[in-house]
């Protein structure tokens, strides 16, 4: 009976050790997963946005609508006079 009791206690210890090891493994995996999400290069750390040039860049390269006209010295009396608007 004493021999069976020792074996039974050893089994309980072994089961506990397995559970502890499994739990520790799951915990380490979970921490590594969260850490990788938060810090590792290549992992998305925020909601994905559509690809596009930064607005400041778009503004810098956008062509202004303000373009010069063509003027020259007058050759005859004016047809009209520009006043003010």
């Amino acid at each position: 009976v004493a021999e069976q009791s020792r074996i039974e206690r050893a089994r309980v210890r072994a089961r506990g050790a397995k559970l502890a090891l499994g739990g520790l493994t799951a915990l380490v995996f979970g921490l590594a997963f969260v850490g990788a999400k938060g810090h590792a290069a290549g992992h998305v750390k925020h909601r994905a946005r559509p690809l596009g040039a930064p607005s400041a860049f778009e503004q810098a390269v956008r062509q202004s609508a303000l373009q010069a006209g063509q003027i020259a010295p007058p050759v005859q009396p004016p047809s009209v006079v520009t006043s003010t608007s």
Partner: protein
Amino acid sequence: VRAAVNDVHRFRAMGCDVVVSGGDPAETGAVFARWEEAFSRFLPESELSRVNASAAPAIRVSPLFARALRTALAAAADTDRLVDPTLAAALAAAGYDRDFSLLPADGPVGAAAPSRLREVRLEGRILRRPPGLALDLNGVVKALAVDAAAAALPGDGFVSAGGDLAVRGPVDVGLPGGGAVRVVAGGLATSGVLSRRWRRGGRERHHLIDPRTGRPSDSPWRAVTVSGDSCLAADVAAKAAFLLGEDGPDWLDERGLPGRFLGSDGIVENRAWAGPTREVACT
């Protein structure tokens, strides 16, 4: 604009004299009527008045309205927000709250109203802005109408409205303060305080509001004339150059735009204005 030859036709629209040469004045008049019906601040049934009176935070506007507002927002971006379509409240506070011919001799002046440009969003034809924010698109609408009317001319000619001019073929144009220039292509516009002045709060006011103060500008210039590749470009640049005061000539030169500034001490021409004129004069 004052006509000086016989083949021109004149009529009133948008609160100013319209002069057309080389086309059917009835057709030009129809163009201006269409734009005025949509964008007048003083017609209660205009689309602008209805948009300004609407309590809805988002409104679906007409294609014409969306085009004009998009142009106005682009003009604001091109001028570092000097030409601003959200200054209707400032204009009304300064006293210009009804048709110019109906303004009283004097009256109280309202509080300055700053720019609210950042509150306006246009997505396609959906306009979003806080209810109560009044738009004034007159900074671009008249020039757009002039460009549209000039594009509809069958051949050479010009269309001019209250200082804004677009040409089809060369036209010699008299300038404020004397002198003249030949507009070979594009448009010519003058912005200033020689006309449209009224009294409020015991002093003279004008319609060129500085968005940085929400008040009529204290610019030293009386009139600024700019040449652009369209009447719109010329008009927007002339307004910005006027509002920039002493910095106006350099601001135009940085963009290659010819400008002529009439001040109380005389006339200043920027390098872009003086350069081509001298070049052509030597050939």
